[in-house]
């Protein structure tokens, strides 16, 4: 009786294991085609780029199959072609600095405008809430090039902003806004702000206003309620929004190209130059990977804080 029981149990278990294995096999089979395409046209090319960053630049573009760490050296340093003296590559450093500075400012401005907007949407009655949300989603899914072009049109010397300001008598000469860092900042904020509003809204929607009420009952001022109750509760949304704005800003290519006018470069434009006029493919590959590392670093910070947040709520 007891032996029969055990063998029954065993066969039941092995059936269970077989079913599980079948399920796993099915899952892997289903996922394989997508993974193949992604490997060929998304992850795989990154590995080839890594190889290219360790090769020698060809004389007329392309590469020579010769191992070299020169490209990585050139990311940060400049070697004089005549006397071989080494100095910091000022051009690269200033472009990286501008990219980080502008991305940071973009995130900040997007937060200052996006937070009240998310709060506004979250405090609407449920029937109109989705309409407001829809109004934020539309620009998010419309062409980035067109939205950048729209900014170009309104800040030109004869554009809407200058025309209005001159008509009102605020200024008598048009402001030269185009092809400046301010133009890039304005363009990136405009283009990426929905990415700040949407995650903050998602956190705000779950906000329990009874806590806000409790704070007011305890004589908290509006400012204290905002800083000590609301902001800590929607922090995950704020962090997610900031990362979602910061990362594409750092890798921006179209916006600085159109609004920076080829003078105010960002990392994306510097990378493109290595495949165009500059023609130093290994350097371009090394710069791309540097950008990728910075972005992955930012993502890691986000994942860490999200995990801490998650475990914090558990207790």
């Amino acid at each position, binding site marked *: 009786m007891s032996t029969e029981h055990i063998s029954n149990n065993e066969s039941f278990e092995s059936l269970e294991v077989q079913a599980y294995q079948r399920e796993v096999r099915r899952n892997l089979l289903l996922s394989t085609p997508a993974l193949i395409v992604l490997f060929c*046209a998304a992850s795989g090319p990154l590995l080839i780029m890594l190889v290219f960053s360790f090769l020698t630049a060809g004389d007329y573009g392309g590469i020579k199959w010769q191992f070299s760490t020169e490209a990585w050296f050139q990311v940060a340093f400049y070697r004089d072609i005549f006397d071989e003296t080494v100095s910091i590559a000022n051009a690269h450093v200033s472009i990286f600095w501008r990219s980080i500075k502008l991305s940071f400012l973009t995130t900040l401005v997007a937060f200052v405008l996006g937070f009240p907007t998310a709060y506004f949407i979250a405090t609407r009655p449920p029937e109109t809430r989705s309409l407001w949300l829809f109004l934020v989603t539309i*620009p998010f899914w419309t062409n980035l090039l067109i939205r950048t072009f729209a900014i170009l049109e309104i800040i030109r010397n004869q554009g809407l902003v200058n025309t209005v300001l001159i008509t009102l008598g605020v200024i008598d000469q048009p402001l030269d806004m185009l092809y400046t860092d301010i133009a890039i900042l304005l363009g990136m904020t405009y283009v990426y702000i929905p990415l700040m509003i949407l995650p903050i809204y998602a956190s705000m929607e779950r906000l329990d206003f009874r806590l806000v009420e409790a704070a007011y009952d305890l004589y908290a001022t509006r400012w204290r309620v905002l800083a000590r109750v609301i902001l800590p509760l929607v922090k995950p949304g704020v962090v997610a929004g900031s990362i979602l704005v910061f990362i594409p800003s750092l890798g921006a290519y179209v916006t600085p190209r159109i609004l920076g006018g080829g003078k105010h470069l960002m990392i994306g434009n510097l990378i493109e130059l290595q495949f165009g006029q500059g023609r130093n493919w290994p350097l371009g590959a090394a710069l791309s990977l540097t950008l990728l590392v910075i972005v992955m670093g930012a993502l890691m910070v986000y994942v860490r804080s999200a995990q801490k947040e998650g475990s914090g709520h558990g207790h």
Partner: protein
Amino acid sequence: MVTNSRPFSIKRMPGFSLLALACFFALYMPLAPLVFYSFNAGNNIALWEGLSLRWYVAAWENDLVQSAAIRSVVVAVIASVVATSLATMAALGTTRTRPYRGQTSIYAMVNQPLMVPEIVTAVALLILFALIKESTGYHGYAYLVSAHTAFCIPFAYLPIRARLEGMDRVLEAAAADLYATPWRTFTKVTLPLLLPGILAGAMLAFVISLDDVVITEFVKSAGQDTLPTYMLGQLRRTITPEINAISTVLLGVSVVMVAIIFFLSRKKT
């Protein structure tokens, strides 16, 4: 007491509504002149000379625009159909199952195009395709289509996965109890339930492919301009309202698509 006419509301934050409305205004205001000047009769995007559809006709009759538009649509259709099919399969393989080894890796790999900056993917593809072009001499559309398919996969995957996660297994179990074969259960139960997610995913993928600039700009061979890369090239020259006309049409397509996706995903069955 008399001065405080408005009742105290715990949800009110002074200035927030004003900032929010300013933000909504700022989101839409720049698009107004863009659309407005596309109907300009004059040659200029700053000087209004009367209402006309002249630039829409000009864009329509411009061979470069026409071929770029056709190319954009063909690439977007192929890429979104292939990406959606692959994403549906991957979603079925990663959702509603007992956890297995590699599941998170698959998830990470599917979403990888969302995390890597576009310019980095673009340059990496440029390098890979340059190698292939050099060794095979093939310069066709396969490069563009495969690149678009790859970055469309996560956009198709996410709504499908979201839909699947909200689906109960009960109906499928009932079908199996009634002796439906797994394939029949899939085509008669799972697929119809999943359809809104698949449609939303396909449309997102289509919009994303149609709007792509960066990757297309780096991957295309000579004479393979899509509408966005054609426009990017034109922005370097003197801008005519033709660009506004093309932009307005593209804007319209995106708005319609997003509206459909919005209502598809809102309708809960």
